[in-house]
């Protein structure tokens, strides 16, 4: 049921501009042409959008396959002129793992550059995300000889940030990069792209010798978390 609904939503997102044109709204073209003419002579106006993105992950990491979908809502502001070369910024909220309301909450913020032509734009961005992760990246690999446990390896996200709810200091704060392409259709944005997280993982290994647990060591590694996103934005003002 959920997948079917989402398919319809995605279909509309991708085909939104086409629908808008195919709806037989002839005056649209006229208005657009007038606007384009005005744009050539006027400075671009600042704009603020409410955006909703579906973020999709499907990749392998440390021998495990990950497949997930998250939702991200953000307020994105486009400046009328560049500030330090930047075209705008956003603040947002991402929810991962809808099976629990106790974790998987993130606040994020980013700045972005933008190159725009014929209503299409290319928009690379960089930002940071703080929140309480779900346990989806936490894995333990047990090694058995028959029924006897001989060693195990734990792989998990390093907790590096203060967290006001639940157990203290179990949050994460990590950077991410975005590469988006999109199209403006009146007050609506249609956008898709790649969102790449840069998360720090801890790998601890343990061995059993004569049934005694022995710590073998720990290593820390940064890993890229590649995801794709597609979304729609509505101009607020």
């Amino acid at each position, binding site marked *: *049921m*959920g*997948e079917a*609904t*989402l398919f319809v*939503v995605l279909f*509309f*997102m991708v085909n*939104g501009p086409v*629908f*808008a044109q195919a709806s037989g*709204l002839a*005056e*649209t073209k006229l*208005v657009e042409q007038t606007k384009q003419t005005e744009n050539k002579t006027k400075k671009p106006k600042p704009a603020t959008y*409410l955006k*909703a993105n*579906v973020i999709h992950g499907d990749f392998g990491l440390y021998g*495990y*396959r990950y497949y997930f*979908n*998250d*939702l991200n809502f953000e307020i994105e502001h486009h400046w009328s002129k560049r500030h330090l070369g930047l075209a705008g910024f956003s603040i947002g909220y991402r*929810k991962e793992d*809808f*099976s*629990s309301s*106790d*974790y998987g909450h993130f606040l994020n913020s980013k700045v972005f550059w933008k190159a725009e032509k014929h209503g299409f734009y290319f928009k690379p961005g960089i930002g940071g995300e703080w929140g309480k*992760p*779900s*346990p*989806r990246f*936490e*894995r*333990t*690999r*047990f090694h*058995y000889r028959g*029924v006897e*446990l001989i060693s195990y390896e*734990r792989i998990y*996200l390093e*907790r590096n940030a203060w967290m006001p709810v*639940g*157990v203290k200091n*179990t949050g994460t704060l990590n950077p991410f990069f975005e590469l988006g392409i999109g199209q403006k259709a*009146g*007050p*609506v944005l249609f956008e898709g792209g790649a969102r790449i997280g840069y998360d720090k993982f*801890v790998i*601890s290994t*343990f061995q059993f010798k004569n049934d005694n*647990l*022995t*710590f*073998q060591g*720990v290593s820390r590694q940064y890993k890229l978390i590649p995801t794709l996103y597609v979304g*729609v934005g*509505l101009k607020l003002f």
Partner: protein
Amino acid sequence: MTKMTRRVSLVLLSSALFCGCNSRFFSPVAPTLTPDSGLITVNTPEGQIGWSPYIVVHSDGGAVEGYRKALTLLKSRGMVRGVRVGLSGYGDTGVQMISSLGIEMVGIVPNESLFDSNLEAMIDRYVSSYPDIKVFQIGNEVTTINQTQGLPKMTIEQYMDVFKKIYNHVRSNPSPVMLMTQSTFGSGFYGSDELKKMVELGLKPNILSPQRVIVGINVYSDDALGEYVSTRNQYLDDPKQGGYRVWVMETGSPNPSEHISHVRSFYSRLASALGAERIYWYVLWGGDTGPDVGFSLISNPYDTNRMTYSPLFKALAGIQ
């Protein structure tokens, strides 16, 4: 045009929000059952599940024959390797029966024994009375259930003092018994916060050796699982000195028709995300009346001819 586009966009935004809520599309499925999870694959009417062959058994002299019948069925299929038993006094007929079946045991030293004025003598009595038990759990949920059992309140600070006293005595003793910490509470973040406090109060590899201590926790809910995972990663596993073996000493569902789905969705996450080496099902029999009835795998163990089994038990034992 503008009005229509705005309407379409509002519909799209609302749809994205609605389909996100409680949709399987946005909720992860349990990790695939792999050999490295340490779980046993069991075919059930609801599909394959990963089972950890450990069960909680309440001490009850009248139920011993029912327990024998049930555990024999499970043992013959390799579905039970160990049980956790509450020790009642210093000679428990149930413990002797379980031992005779070749099933490994974790014995819970009762909470009331933690108030003993001579803790060293107390633990020595339990160790000598139960030579087949190699792991002794020192109390269970002591800060939450003592009052309900009519016992004095025990803070986590007092508990850790007791645990360290017993640990220091056992460590100097040639007996190779292992100690297990009390199981922390299984819902919300009370238990994980308490586990964090236990770490701050000395549950550290350089103070309490992981070669003599196992950490026990109870996990019944998804929110508790998430908090325990975070707490283990941030506090319990020391980056320089390693960490402890973690055993989940209680998990289960109060509704027999959901036992199988609980195991299917929860066990693989306990093993994989939390790194639980063992998972004990609560409970073989929780009484035929009272709040724990629904958790039971069997009922009527006082009369083995009238004994009935939950769907999970039937799947594990391979009976109809």
